[in-house]
């Protein structure tokens, strides 16, 4: 099987659009974040139609198992088996194939052909292809009519104000946001807490003394990270009963004492 032959034999005139040559028939799709060479097919439906035409299959009775196998083979050969759109179609074909294999339940309910939706889409797409061919031919005819090449520059009239409306502007904002790799609404700065180090300091102090004021944990100029690390360490140790926290008087720093499960390291 040669894919190139299949394509050449199955796509009617105009498939290459205004370009008139197969080399420019498609454009690399960059939508998914990777570049796929889609020179031969403008999408999975196009490929599917090409297969159906090549095999001279009745579109209303597609041998889905055979077509699914060929589809997988072709996207593999063309290196399209990483393109989401082709994979989605492959998955759809395999699902239909599976549904076709299910035993039909007598005549309890009317059987709905699982291929139906696919056929509808193929016919719809085929119609678009015909219109595309028509437009390409019309554009080729039109291109044989040159319009005037030299247009006199209008006398120094002030340019009229451009058309602009608010909807367009907001749409532009939305396009910009969509374009930004990661529109940031709020920025959170990760600052690693050193809970382990703080825990070690607490345990060292508890080994020395039965009780101490919690501020002794902090150095002379504690950063917010030091304070938070120490608090988290104290709360963790208090939860396990290694120490107890008590505030002797309102508005005073709390004290740290050995708890019921305290064991010297």
């Amino acid at each position: 099987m040669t894919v190139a032959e299949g394509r050449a034999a199955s796509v009617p005139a105009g498939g290459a659009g205004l370009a008139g040559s197969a080399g420019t028939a498609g454009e690399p799709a960059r939508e998914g974040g990777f570049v796929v060479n889609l020179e031969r097919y403008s999408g999975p439906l196009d490929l599917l139609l090409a297969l159906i035409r090549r095999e001279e299959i009745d579109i209303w009775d597609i041998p889905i198992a055979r077509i699914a196998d060929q589809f997988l083979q072709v996207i593999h050969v063309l290196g399209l088996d990483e393109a989401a759109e082709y994979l989605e179609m492959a998955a759809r074909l395999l699902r239909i194939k599976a549904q076709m294999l299910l035993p039909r339940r007598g005549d309890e309910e009317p059987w709905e052909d699982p291929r139906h939706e696919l056929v509808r889409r193929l016919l719809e797409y085929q119609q678009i292809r015909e219109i595309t061919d028509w437009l390409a031919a019309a554009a080729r005819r039109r291109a044989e009519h040159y319009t005037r090449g030299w247009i006199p520059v209008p006398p120094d009239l002030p340019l009229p104000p451009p058309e602009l409306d608010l909807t367009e502007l907001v749409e532009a904002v939305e396009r910009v946001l969509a374009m930004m790799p990661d529109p940031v609404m709020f920025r959170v700065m990760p600052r690693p807490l050193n809970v382990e180090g703080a825990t070690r300091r607490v345990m060292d102090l508890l080994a020395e003394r039965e009780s101490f004021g919690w501020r002794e944990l902090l150095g002379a100029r504690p950063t917010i990270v030091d304070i938070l690390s120490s608090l988290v360490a104290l709360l963790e140790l208090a939860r396990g009963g290694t120490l107890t926290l008590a505030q002797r008087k309102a508005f005073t720093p709390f004290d740290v004492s050995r708890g019921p499960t305290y064991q010297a390291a």
Partner: protein
Amino acid sequence: MCPVDQRTRLLEAALFAAPRPLALDELAVLDADATEDDWRRALGELRDHYEAEGHGVELGEVAGGWQITTLPIFAEAIERAAFAARPAKLSAAALEVLAIVAYRQPVGRAEIEDIRGVSCGGVLRMLQERGLLDVAGRSEGLGRPILYATTPLFLELVGLPELSDLPRTDELAVALRPPQSPEP
């Protein structure tokens, strides 16, 4: 000698100077005394003159207006001489999107992608930048998606007077065509 009317001469000058097809109602500004019928007569006279006298140009109706263009028989020679720049050609994908928008407008991106089976954000952007598509409003649906429509420039690109001159879908062969032999 087959002299043409003064109004026809003015019409010719205006069509020469305009960078795009001129609609009948735009011609009115040229001469306050002339009615639309007068302009129709002048257009007819100019077209007939070009045909009868053997000119290199012709008068055509496109994109809702009238425009003078060169005759197709001279296209090859002009192309060869490379006097005139051609606009960049459109890809098959771009033409497919134009075809969908032309027939379904106003239409949203999701519907276009549904029909084509591939995403087309980049193509839509390019067509908008080239002035072939434009935003026609927003759908009432979820997220109020943008709807697209074709522009007069699209009609110029394919040389059609009006959108209604596109082939009707029932004129197209909807059923699959049999395999065709490769193009020569």
